[in-house]
């Protein structure tokens, strides 16, 4: 090994590299090593979780069905000025593409896509596809108009032209109760179709209400737990931790048992004589049921952060305030409560994030008017099969949750998140 002989005032490692450089390399190696440890999980989450959600969100803007079914017609329509009806060649091309037997599968999907834009389009497509094959010879324009007079309207063609764009924000417009007129103008949906904004607002209101209820219920018991001697507090903590560890479905089932018309609570009320046997209170399969069950399920998520903050507040503060002449209420409001704000903030964001995405409880105990946005996403996923609308509603919900998550990170720091 060569001796370190150069004498230029630079500190060197044993192998002759300047110490600074060697240190930089070692730091870099450590960084890479730390990163390599996280790569298996990072890769796993990216592939099995982030990618699927990204692909699903892509569905909210992707609309390739019409251009796949009628590539040539759409190409011709690109040149069309949208003033008068398109020329005979457009009708002829549409007839050719509609009669193509290999195209059958695409036709159905294109019909569904067009139907999202203009209801009635699917049946128009089906009817036309069935009949146009018989009209073997030109002029196709007259043949089309004879099948249905809508083919003689400029708006019908504008709709097809609009749907020819493989990317669209239409699903997002629909999710916000807006729509795009054939002219391209963005207008409000007809009033009977305006349901999603109401539903989003309802979800936000319910989540806020549940969060408020959780603060009101969690504050006193957290205070009690934080100020009792450790032994008693640990014992009482079971009342918080047991529900926390108990299955969501078990708790929801139990609320059905408690709240139903012939359930325990109504029985007790009748027995006491507060309500008559005939007018038992309807507390379930409506918003009341959703609200009570959600509050119960999310309460531990408020108690745990609040308790951990309250435990760190020294008892001397209150005593000092009292000795300086504050009465208990003032001492509590001016000295104690401000110190619990971080706990309330952390708990509130956590509860609100969880509440806003709730699905199970509203689906089981919500009935008709206790449904939240998650339930309508499921409906569009599984029943109406309007996947782009489901994806758009999900995208908006996700954006809201991520914004709250960012806020949580700013206030609490995700590195400080604790469980149990």
């Amino acid at each position, binding site marked *: 090994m060569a001796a370190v002989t150069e004498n230029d005032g630079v500190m060197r490692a044993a192998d002759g590299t300047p110490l600074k450089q060697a240190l930089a390399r070692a*730091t870099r190696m450590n*960084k890479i090593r*730390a*990163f390599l*440890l*996280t790569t298996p*999980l*990072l890769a*796993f*989450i990216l592939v*099995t*979780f*982030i990618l*699927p*959600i990204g*692909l*699903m*969100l892509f569905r909210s803007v992707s609309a390739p069905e019409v251009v796949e079914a009628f590539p040539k017609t759409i190409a011709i329509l690109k040149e069309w000025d949208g003033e008068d009806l398109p020329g005979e060649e457009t009708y002829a091309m549409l007839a050719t593409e509609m009669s193509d037997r290999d195209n059958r599968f695409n036709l159905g999907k294109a019909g569904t896509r067009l139907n999202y834009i203009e209801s009635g389009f699917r049946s128009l497509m089906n009817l036309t596809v069935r009949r146009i094959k018989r009209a073997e010879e030109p002029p196709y324009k007259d043949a089309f108009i004879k099948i249905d007079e809508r083919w003689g309207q400029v708006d019908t063609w504008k709709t097809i032209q609009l749907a020819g764009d493989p990317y669209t924000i239409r699903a997002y417009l629909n999710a916000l109760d807006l729509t795009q007129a054939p002219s391209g103008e963005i207008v409000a949906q007809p009033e009977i179709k305006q349901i999603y904004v109401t539903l989003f607002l309802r979800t936000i209101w319910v989540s806020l209400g549940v969060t408020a209820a959780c603060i009101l*219920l969690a504050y*006193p*018991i957290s205070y*009690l737990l934080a*100020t*009792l001697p450790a032994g008693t507090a640990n014992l*009482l903590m079971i*009342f918080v*931790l*047991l*529900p926390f*560890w*108990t*299955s*969501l*479905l*078990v*708790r*929801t*089932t*139990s*609320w*059905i*048992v408690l709240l139903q018309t012939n359930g*325990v609570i109504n*029985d007790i009320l009748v027995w006491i004589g507060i309500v008559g046997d005939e007018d038992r209170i309807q507390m379930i399969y409506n918003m009341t049921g959703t609200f009570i069950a959600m509050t*119960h399920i999310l309460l531990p998520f408020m108690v745990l952060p609040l308790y951990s903050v309250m435990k760190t507040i020294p008892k001397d503060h209150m005593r000092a305030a009292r000795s300086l002449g504050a009465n208990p209420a003032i001492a509590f409001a001016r000295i104690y409560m401000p110190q619990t704000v971080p706990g309330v903030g952390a708990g509130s964001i956590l509860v609100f*994030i969880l509440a*806003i*995405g709730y*699905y*199970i409880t509203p689906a089981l105990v919500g009935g008709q008017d206790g449904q939240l946005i*998650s339930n309508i996403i499921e409906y569009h*996923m599984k029943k109406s099969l309007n996947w782009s609308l489901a994806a758009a509603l*999900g995208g908006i919900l996700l954006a809201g*949750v991520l914004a709250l*998550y960012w806020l949580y990170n700013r206030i609490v720091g*995700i*590195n400080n998140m*604790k*469980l*149990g």
Partner: protein
Amino acid sequence: MSAIPSYAGPLERFWYYAFRFLCGVIFLFLISPIIVMIPLSFNAEPYFTFTPEMLALKSEAFSLRWYQDILDNDQWLHSMKNSFIVGIAATFLATSLGTIAALGLSRSEMPYRTLIMGVLLSPMIVPLIITAAGLFFFYSSINLAQTYTGLILAHTALGTPFVVITVTATLSGFDRNLIRAASSLGSSPQRTFFKVILPLISPGVISGGLFAFVTSFDEVVVALFLAGFEQRTVPRQMWAGIREQISPTILAVATILVLISVMLLAAMEILRRRSERLRGLSPS
């Protein structure tokens, strides 16, 4: 608060008892839904309510028929088995992946920590319905929908954040000099991990694993989208039971699940105490 001071006036005394009463009511709200169904699961009648005979504590009003029902029903047994298969596999995967990642995240040299932490914790934050919808499309397109593999992978992703959080928390109290000591004594990194690090962080790893198991064992939304009839888990089966014909069998299953959560809670408490003792936070 712990005891009423001797100088307290009548108003303060009143507040003291009123506050305790209020807290009692809130504790009752928390616990009564879990308690109330236990006696009902022994109801001899197929009702969801207490019969007058039950309230009079007559022995013939109680029976084990709903528990017998579970044992006689292939679907319940099958879903029980599925829940354990999926839960144990997902827990194993989540615990190993999550522990290794937590080791990297708790190093001071970790680059982009907040960003990576955000990605790793995202399965816990994203609303379940969005997760379920995304996984449904993706797993259908690669033929993993309605397979055990698909369900296990999904539950693994949902369980990893809990492992990452608990293990990172445990590592924050870990003395890094021990690693240096082991290396200086000639131990290989693998050996150091298994002989020095793992035994010390095991309470955190196990409680993270328990969280992951509970997450999988209690998960229903993703199971609704991804599981076929063959892969039905207990929550999936309960969901069907609550929606279709609600029978006291559900209450018997629920009671068993409550017992399981009591055991898990006890396990967590033991782990917490052990972890505190290891860190020297409380006298042993």
